[in-house]
């Protein structure tokens, strides 16, 4: 075992990369849940985004188009969820599961031709002087644009929910859809938009795994990140900045266990690999005592006749 092989600067820099898919997926799900919709299909939307992003990036040679396509792919899958839960008034838990099962199958089908191919590299930001600074450079200024976009998105969602009228309406729909409806807000339309936003974010997160983090396509490669993102929203008590904190925490655990594996710690690989999931459970247990922060209409079906 050689712990000195772990370089703290690289560790933090790679932690940010590991956290970004989680961050993107979780901030999207946070918006959906604040509007009162529990979408358990995050894993399915992520893997769909991962495969569409990968395919488009490989075909066009442009990672940027890949990410745009991934967002569209994730949103397209989440549109099925909109149809099921908002128009067909189906149970949200069951519909979310359906989305995940369907997304996993669809992505495996679509991705067959792309196994073993390398995607075009996503260029890192390269600011003269700043990116070359020791320690600060690789951590703050040496990443790809999508990573910064993720942080920007958190700030954007925070500002939207806290300061704007649109954010207030979104929260009103999530807290009490009957009252919001009585005030004349289009509950179904607002929720549909929130779900689509969540889908696009999850798609981006998935593409970040297949285009930047890994980068290649393998079946089922999201490996539960979507589910951890769902847990993260609970962890964050539905607050945007806490999502960032939580994502970095989980990213840190993931990267640390990978580093420990590489450093040859005496713990078997399998037990290190299960640690992020176990820690997610632990965090859920600690935080589940306080349920008061959850949007009051979360998971309830809205129909104007009632």
């Amino acid at each position, binding site marked *: 075992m050689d712990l000195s092989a772990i370089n703290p600067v690289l560790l933090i820099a790679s932690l940010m990369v590991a956290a970004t898919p989680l961050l993107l997926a979780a901030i999207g799900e946070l918006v959906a849940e604040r509007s009162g919709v529990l979408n358990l299909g995050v894993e399915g939307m992520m893997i769909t985004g991962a495969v569409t992003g990968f395919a488009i990036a490989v075909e066009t040679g442009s990672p940027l188009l890949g990410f745009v396509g991934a967002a569209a792919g994730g949103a397209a899958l989440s549109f099925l969820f909109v149809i099921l839960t908002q128009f067909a008034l189906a149970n949200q838990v069951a519909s979310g599961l359906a989305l995940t099962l369907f997304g996993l199958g*669809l992505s495996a089908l679509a991705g*067959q031709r792309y196994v073993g191919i390398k995607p075009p590299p996503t260029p890192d930001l390269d600011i003269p002087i700043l990116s070359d600074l020791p320690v600060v450079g690789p951590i703050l200024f040496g990443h790809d644009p999508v990573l910064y976009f993720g942080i920007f998105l958190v700030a954007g969602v925070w500002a939207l929910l806290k300061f704007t009228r649109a954010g207030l309406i979104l929260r009103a729909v999530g807290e009490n859809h009957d009252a919001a409806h009585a005030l004349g807000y289009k509950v179904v339309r607002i929720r549909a938009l929130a779900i689509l936003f969540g889908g696009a974010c999850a798609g981006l997160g998935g593409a970040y795994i297949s285009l930047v983090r890994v980068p290649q396509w393998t079946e089922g490669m999201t490996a539960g990140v979507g589910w951890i993102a*769902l847990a993260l929203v609970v962890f964050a008590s539905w607050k945007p900045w806490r999502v960032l904190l939580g994502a970095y925490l989980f990213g840190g655990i993931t990267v640390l266990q990978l580093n420990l594996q590489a450093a040859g710690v005496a713990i078997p690989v*399998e037990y290190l690999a299960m640690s992020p999931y176990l820690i997610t459970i632990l965090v859920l247990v600690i935080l*589940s005592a306080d349920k008061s922060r959850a949007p009051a209409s979360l998971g309830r079906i809205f129909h104007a006749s009632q």
Partner: protein
Amino acid sequence: MIRLEKRPQPSRVWRLATPLLAVLATMIAGGLLFAVLGKNPVEAIRTIFWDPLFGEFAFYYRPQLLVKGAPLVLIAIGLSLGFRAGIWNIGAEGQYIIGALTGAGVGLAFYPLDAWFVFPLMVIAGALGGWAWAMIPAVLKVRFGTNEILVSLMLVYVAEQLLASMSLGLLRNPEGMGFPGSRNLNDYAAGSSWINQNAGLHWGVAAALIAVIFAYVLLNRHMLGYHIRLTGEAPRAARFAGVRPARLILFCLGTSGALAGLAGLFEVSGPSGQVSIDFNVGYGFTAIIVAFLGRLHPVGILLAGALMALTYIGGEIAQGNLGLPAAAIQVFQGMLLFFLLAFDLLTDYRVRVTRSEVA
């Protein structure tokens, strides 16, 4: 203008008709999908739904129906109890793995002892393993109010890692020349679940049928089953009627875990034969579709399990004969759940076409 009107009572006719309609719609949409993939849709659908039952090699495929159907029904019966009461165990895949590990572990511990009690002990160990794994989310939910969906799902990934660790380490075949995977239980008569391998009959099939009967009696003739149904249909009324939610959570999650564990044990000691890294093939997740398709009703689940087993086998045939990708059948199964959930609208609501009123 299309308007939805809530029915005072869910329609009985549509409750039975929606699964059939969903299957039909899935066949059409699936046919389109197969056409996009460049296969003849009619031939593909026929290969999936007809050939395993009445095709040239049906004598070989029919027993497979029991082999694939048994674990699906066994797991889905357990899940349906919880789903009815709004308790969502979606980690059956993990409980299935753990049941297989504990059950096979007991069997392998006795190897090569040839005694009548080995297999019964394995069955008990398998059920207990699945039960214990499901008790983790159950106890956490009862004690701390933790979301059982997320915990049970996280435990699937933990179980998969445990499976990898066991098949590479503790349970590895000492005479396996270093290859991963345990001894093959099919070579160990005292630890095999086969009754008649040629007929596809193993103890899991028997257990699935017993579970169906057990669930039917429980739901229709027993106080506990009444409480489960009451909690799902009218949670507030259930509380006034003195239903204790904690007991219900422990019972539903525990039972579904034990049944999933049993399914895993019967699979590992029969059709699969050994503990290996890729032992689990997603029965725990497909069983969710089976449970919904069967309307969470024991008899419905039996039929739905048979249908889903058919798509598995038909999918394999189509893979071999038509070169249909394995993932296509997964998409097909996912579609089925989609259509079912969408058509369920007709059970609870009446669709009225009205002219938009002029004020």
